[in-house]
């Protein structure tokens, strides 16, 4: 039994690096895009730009990740825009994450008292300085716990990339199933690996909440 588990775990570990790179790649896109969209949506006076961002966010928040990956991988692939499965997964999950985090950062900005901005412009800061030095650092701090929850969700969602044949953990599990008959054990092992990967993220969220949550 232990032998089998060891054998399965070693086989599945081949997918870990792709799982982690998809998670990190999508996370980077999501944070940068989400912050950009969140700042612009919160502060621009240009109505058309706000509307465009709203459309983007609503679309990506109300369509399943699997559909978006299929559109990018199979759909765009069929019209000549062929992306690798890992690239497509990073792009698709990152674009979705940008929409999710846009809302998260926006909520962070709108939680700030208007006096924070007033005090900054009163000492002569420009709007850009006010956002960068005063508002954004506070909004990001407020956004950290939901950002952590998003990261856990993202780690799990990378398993969806197996549906477009990205060689991550779940893909290895599905392949392994066809060559052995230890189906139950294989999926339990796969689940266990995801769980182990997510535990440090849980820890991080808890310590962030402890540090910033109380007494601000």
């Amino acid at each position, binding site marked *: 039994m232990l032998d089998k588990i060891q054998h399965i775990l070693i086989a599945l570990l081949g997918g870990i690096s792709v799982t982690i790179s998809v998670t990190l790649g999508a996370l980077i896109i999501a944070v940068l895009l989400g912050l950009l969209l969140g700042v612009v949506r919160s502060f621009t006076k240009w109505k058309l730009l706000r509307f465009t961002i709203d459309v983007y966010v*609503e*679309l990506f*928040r*109300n*369509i*399943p*990740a*699997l*559909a*978006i990956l*299929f*559109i990018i991988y*199979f*759909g*765009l*692939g*069929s*019209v000549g825009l062929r992306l690798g499965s890992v690239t497509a997964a990073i792009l698709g999950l990152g674009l979705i994450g940008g929409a999710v985090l846009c809302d998260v950062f926006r909520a962070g900005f709108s939680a700030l008292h208007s006096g924070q901005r007033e005090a900054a412009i009163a000492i002569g800061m420009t709007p850009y300085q006010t956002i960068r030095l005063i508002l954004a650092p506070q909004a990001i701090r407020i956004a950290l716990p939901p950002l952590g929850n998003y990261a*856990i969700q993202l780690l*799990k*969602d990378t*398993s*969806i990339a*197996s*549906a477009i044949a990205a060689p991550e953990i*779940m893909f290895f*599990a*599905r392949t392994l*199933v066809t060559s052995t*008959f*230890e*189906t*139950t054990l*294989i*999926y*339990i092992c*796969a*689940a266990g690996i*995801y*769980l182990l990967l*997510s*535990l440090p993220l*849980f820890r991080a969220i808890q310590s962030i909440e402890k540090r910033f949550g109380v007494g601000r």
Partner: protein
Amino acid sequence: MIEFLEVYVKYGSQWFPRMADAALVSASLAFAGFIVAFAIGLMLSIFQRSPLRLLRFVATIYVVVFRGIPLLAILFLLYFGLPGIGVTMSAFTASAVGLGLSFGAQMAEVFRAGLEAIHRGQREAAIAVGMTPLQAFRFVTLPQAVRIISPSMLVTFIVLLKDSSLCALITVNELMLEGRALATEYFLPLNIFVAIGVFYFLIAWPLSLLARTMDARIRAKQTRTL
């Protein structure tokens, strides 16, 4: 762009009925999964408030485990894995159970947040007028909590509905699987998956708007009384 839209004019009448039928399967799958998730979530939140340490421990472990495991792993385990140890379910049943197990952990968090949002004074006032703790929960805390959490329950349902698309991978003939079938039949994956995306969007988006309206209304009310 015109060419792209012309495809829909040409094939729309063939695709639409099949997609609509499959969308109904998706909707019923989401409902079934949500009912299971609701029951599990409620049970867990009762466990979390139990004086028994063991029950609180079980609830904590459950939430940590199921928040850390991808839905896809749960679905594969239930549908492909369990038959290996003699438990066989239809794809639909396995999906409803899998969605319920996974989202049960999220529902527990939703319930917990709702109960915590009720000011302690509410319960104290109920006990002060002579209610037992159970009555205070039943008549004062719970009704308020249900109102507060209804938007987040709706949001959870929307996420569940979107994630029900993963059940295509264990052969439930819902919207996404129909999309894949159509894609292999017509060799027009971009058109077909965009149409599938639109289908999901048209179901999920109105619900998202509703959740936001409900949330805004509840917040406005809440600021008036403690």
